[in-house]
């Protein structure tokens, strides 16, 4: 079958439908091209694009009411689709269905929620009303619960189907949910395995399967022609998803799961199938809060149009001498890595950067992982950084991200949301080590990828990001970070201890700067009660970067030019002079 004549998939993707969520569909298009899989059935982006050129049916997209899910779905749920929400017990299936139902139900087009054998409905109402989306005033007129458990126990599947159809015809709903659909499957199996059935037990035989297939087929047919968007909820293990005829009939298949990773629980959602729509493939983490499910699309922040404008504007870090070393400051919209050992002043430099921005009218966000915001700000205040007032007037947000089961997407979402709230121009992530620890163990294994996604998402917003990273110091090499992430940073400033004249002193150097010239000096600095104070260039020593320098004794001292320029791939002019450093030392 040619792609451009495939009726079920490509035909649904119209110009209007795609246009309704430009960014989302653009994202999904790129993503779906990579993976195919279940969503591959819906055709490639190019096939869909050609379909969109024709005047096909417009599939309206329903808002799910679940933060982040519409983005994953490529704009929303296809109206009149027949969907299955599957997953293990306790992973949020019922809550997801309730959210979608309350979002879309109106007195004119109500939602019907059929409960079969499973969670007793009174208990379900008891717990579901704890969520903010549960609108009691919608019950009865807009949202109706219908209990079918007695009928399932008494009658065959045909009677259950007839009852569902009868109520649907009476009410004319926009959304229909059958929970738990698995019970219906078991009913079909038990019928097949009952006395005289000759069934094999357990898995159900062909009779039950055929009856079930017929039930599902008829249900889908009726509900679709009654113009309802339908959801069957069922408890399934992942292995059961394969070779199950029910999943073949469904237009959409949403798989929810939760896994234990050491002591952390991580919940994930996968849209395994969504006919007629370009979805974002892959596993997306989600969290259940008092507002219900919140999905964190794995491409969050990576695919929306970039606000980043390459700019010649330099942002002061708040230490004039360091600005000078960077050719006037940090190029706005870039990512800076402050790498150094514990106590070297990374956090304080971050405070300088934020405080300087606030003075210049640039709001900021600080993401802290290792101490509470109040403690963090109090410490900064003691050094004279006016962060507290900025927090109060809404130009600074200090967000604390310390749970041990965060996903990368959730972290990015939190920071990006804060950036948007305060319209931040500057962000400090303090520190990457804390960020790594805040993640659930499963995400730590992909920490480089995580950092990539976070930094890219933030810099695409046009904000300048300073990340601090603790480097375990050794005295043989100059490590930049333990994560091999320097490729993510436009600028790297390395802080380190150096043993000089019987003292443990501090020095810093600008190691890398993509945006232009930077000093190649190694400058001494002090951390005082007013912050970082820059001192002179350290002259007359060799092997400074090892931390255990010695005096120059070659008789050929080196005098470097003031700047290296990496923007055009050339090193800055280096002049070799004679005697200068030796002279100094002498």
């Amino acid at each position, binding site marked *: 079958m040619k792609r451009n004549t495939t009726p079920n998939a490509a035909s649904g993707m119209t110009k209007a439908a795609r246009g309704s969520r430009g960014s989302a569909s653009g994202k999904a298009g790129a993503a779906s091209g990579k993976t195919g899989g279940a969503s591959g059935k819906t055709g490639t982006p190019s096939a869909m694009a050609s379909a969109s050129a024709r005047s096909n049916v417009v599939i309206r997209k329903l808002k799910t009411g679940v933060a982040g899910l519409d983005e994953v779905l490529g704009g929303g749920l296809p109206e009149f689709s027949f969907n299955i929400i599957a997953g293990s017990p306790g992973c949020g299936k019922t809550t997801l269905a309730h959210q979608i139902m309350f979002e879309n139900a109106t007195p004119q087009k109500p939602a019907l*929620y059929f*409960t079969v054998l499973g969670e*007793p*409905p*009174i*208990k379900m*109402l*008891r717990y579901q*009303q704890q969520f*903010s989306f549960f*609108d*009691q*005033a*919608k*019950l*009865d007129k807009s949202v*109706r*619960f*219908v*209990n*079918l*458990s*007695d009928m399932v126990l008494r009658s065959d599947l045909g009677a259950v189907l007839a009852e569902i159809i009868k109520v649907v015809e009476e009410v004319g709903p926009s959304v229909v949910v059958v929970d738990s659909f698995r019970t219906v499957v078991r009913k079909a199996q038990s019928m097949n395995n009952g006395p005289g059935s000759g069934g094999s037990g357990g898995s159900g035989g062909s009779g039950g399967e055929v009856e079930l297939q017929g039930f599902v087929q008829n249900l889908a047919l009726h509900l679709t022609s009654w113009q309802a968007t339908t959801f069957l909820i069922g408890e399934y293990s992942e292995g059961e998803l394969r070779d199950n005829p029910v999943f073949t009939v469904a237009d959409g298949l949403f798989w929810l799961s939760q896994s234990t990773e050491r002591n952390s629980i991580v919940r994930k959602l996968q849209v395994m199938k969504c006919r007629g729509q370009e979805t974002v493939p892959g596993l997306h983490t989600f969290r259940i809060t008092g507002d219900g499910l919140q999905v964190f699309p794995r491409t969050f922040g990576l695919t929306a149009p970039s606000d980043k404008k390459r700019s010649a504007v330099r942002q002061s870090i708040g230490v004039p001498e360091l600005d000078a070393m960077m050719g006037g400051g940090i190029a706005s919209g870039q990512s800076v890595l402050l790498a150094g050992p514990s106590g070297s002043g990374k956090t304080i430099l971050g405070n300088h950067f934020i405080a300087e921005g606030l003075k210049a009218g640039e709001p900021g966000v600080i993401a802290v992982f290792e101490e509470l915001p109040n403690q963090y700000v109090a410490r900064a205040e003691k050094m004279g950084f006016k962060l507290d007032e900025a927090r109060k007037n809404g130009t600074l947000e200090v967000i604390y991200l310390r749970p041990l089961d965060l996903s990368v997407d959730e972290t990015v979402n939190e920071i990006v949301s804060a950036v948007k709230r305060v319209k931040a121009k500057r962000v400090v992530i303090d520190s990457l080590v804390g960020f790594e620890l805040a993640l659930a163990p499963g995400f730590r294994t992909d920490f480089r990828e995580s950092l990539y996604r976070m930094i890219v998402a933030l810099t695409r917003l046009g904000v300048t990001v300073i990340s601090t990273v603790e480097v375990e110091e050794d005295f043989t090499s100059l490590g930049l970070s333990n994560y091999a992430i320097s490729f993510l940073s436009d600028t790297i400033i390395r802080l380190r201890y150096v043993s000089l004249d019987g003292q443990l002193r501090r020095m810093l150097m600008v190691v890398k700067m993509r945006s232009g010239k930077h000093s190649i000096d190694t400058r001494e600095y002090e951390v005082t009660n007013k912050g970082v104070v820059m001192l002179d260039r350290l002259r007359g020593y060799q092997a400074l970067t090892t931390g255990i320098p010695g005096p120059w004794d070659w008789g050929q001292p080196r005098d470097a030019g003031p700047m290296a320029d990496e923007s055009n791939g050339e090193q800055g002019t280096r002049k070799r002079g004679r005697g200068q450093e030796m002279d100094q030392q002498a």
Partner: protein
Amino acid sequence: MAAISPASRSLARRLLAIELSRARKSSASPAEVPVPPAARVCDKLRAVLITFAGVAGFRSLLTRALTLAAARAPELKGVTANPDASLAGLEGVIGGKKKAAAQEWEEVLVTQLLDLLVTFVGEGLMHQMVRQAWPDLPVGPLRSKTEDKS
């Protein structure tokens, strides 16, 4: 024994009064034995609740309400729930008893049922269900969240 809520008691009294009045109006002749108001109230709630809780779900609630009510009014021990979740035996218990005593027992039973609903689904949803059964009865302010947002 847990205290019963004055609000539920007051609502029970109102529902019983409505049903008593309706029973009198619908009674064909003075000689006809009317269905006790408590049975009428339970039956109306049953109609609403079995839609989503099922017959078994409502029956279990009613049985629990009867147990709690019998602890306050031991005369109600003879009252049971039928398999279809309707009340059985109430007429026999209150028949021939003083009007005040019968009223008190019925009030206790309905109050316990309403209190159970409040315990499980909250006052808001209980009012919602009562409103479904008695659409003209003004009970409990209930505003839509969407109205609140606007």
